[in-house]
């Protein structure tokens, strides 16, 4: 089973039935598998804060949501994370590609990478960093943790985890 297959399998096993996504090369296979999976309602969004609104609505409608995005989105969504997801105490596993780490070919990505963990720390968002493919073994427990504590939770997946770009 590939790491992408494991992630989607864990989402389904944890009854995560609503996913909103923005395009990403590294998470592309996960997004494709979600699109193909009848158990998960997939709604592509145009911006990540919009996606967090969709996820909040889906949660209040009785579904467990997830959002798939890049780490640049942390810069976009600070207000939404604080005044919607956290303020109303809603769970949201955020599966994030961590651009700008070792192996990154695009210099500008490093500019946001250096702020990513600092912002997540400032927002007191539980953060898990997948660096080795074996780290995917924790994904199931992270999903359970997220829906136990009703918080947004970040899973940062870097280029080493994906074994290149």
């Amino acid at each position: 089973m590939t790491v992408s297959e494991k992630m989607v399998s864990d989402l389904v096993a944890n009854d995560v039935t609503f996913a909103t996504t923005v395009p990403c090369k590294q998470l592309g296979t996960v997004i494709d598998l979600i699109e193909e999976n009848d158990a998960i309602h997939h709604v592509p969004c145009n911006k990540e804060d919009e996606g967090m609104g969709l996820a909040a609505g889906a949660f209040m409608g009785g579904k467990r949501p997830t959002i798939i995005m890049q780490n640049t989105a942390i810069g976009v969504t600070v207000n939404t994370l604080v005044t919607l997801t956290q303020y109303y105490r809603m769970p949201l596993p955020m599966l994030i590609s961590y651009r700008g780490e070792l192996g990154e070919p695009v210099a500008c990505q490093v500019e946001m990478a250096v702020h990513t963990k600092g912002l997540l720390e400032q927002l007191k968002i539980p953060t898990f960093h997948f660096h080795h493919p074996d780290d995917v073994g924790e994904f199931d427990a992270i999903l359970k943790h997220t829906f136990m504590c009703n918080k947004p939770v970040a899973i940062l997946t870097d280029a080493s985890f994906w074994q290149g770009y």
Partner: protein
Amino acid sequence: MIRSEVIKSLVPVLAEQLVVCNIGLPSQELHLLDDRETNFYMLGTMGLSSSIGLGLALAQDKTVISIDGDGSVLTNLGTLPTIANNVANNYILLIIDNGSYGSTGDQPTYAGKKTSLTAVAEACGCENVIECQAEEAPAVLQKAIDSQQMTVIVCKCESGNIKVPVITMDPVVIRDRFMKAVAS
């Protein structure tokens, strides 16, 4: 008619429906006029009323009405293509378009100038887009509910505000009672 008068006229139509209400004065006015457990008041996050409502409509079968403003839709303009391409026939987006940012002091929006949100929604692919005048809003909204087709209503009204108290209810209480109403 100004927005608070439009909302007052809509109260009998909104009663018993799931309502996601825009941040600031619209939520404060609805809360003052007819506080119900079926109302979800946004206390922050300008622009996401339509997105929260769509997510809710896609997740369950009851009718959902998002009350939004022209300024808030302009803030989250990407919502209209998402709505158009993810049809939920239990979803109604009601944009109360007074051509101004009411909650911050009635500064003009571009929707009050050259931009038509009705035309934007149609160009985004929304299929049932109805522009109406303030006085027509209750009948238009009731018809949209009865049609069981996803509808975007752009209700034109005058700019202006009344004094209303802020909502002091805890956000988790708002969310919890709303979720119980959704599930009941």
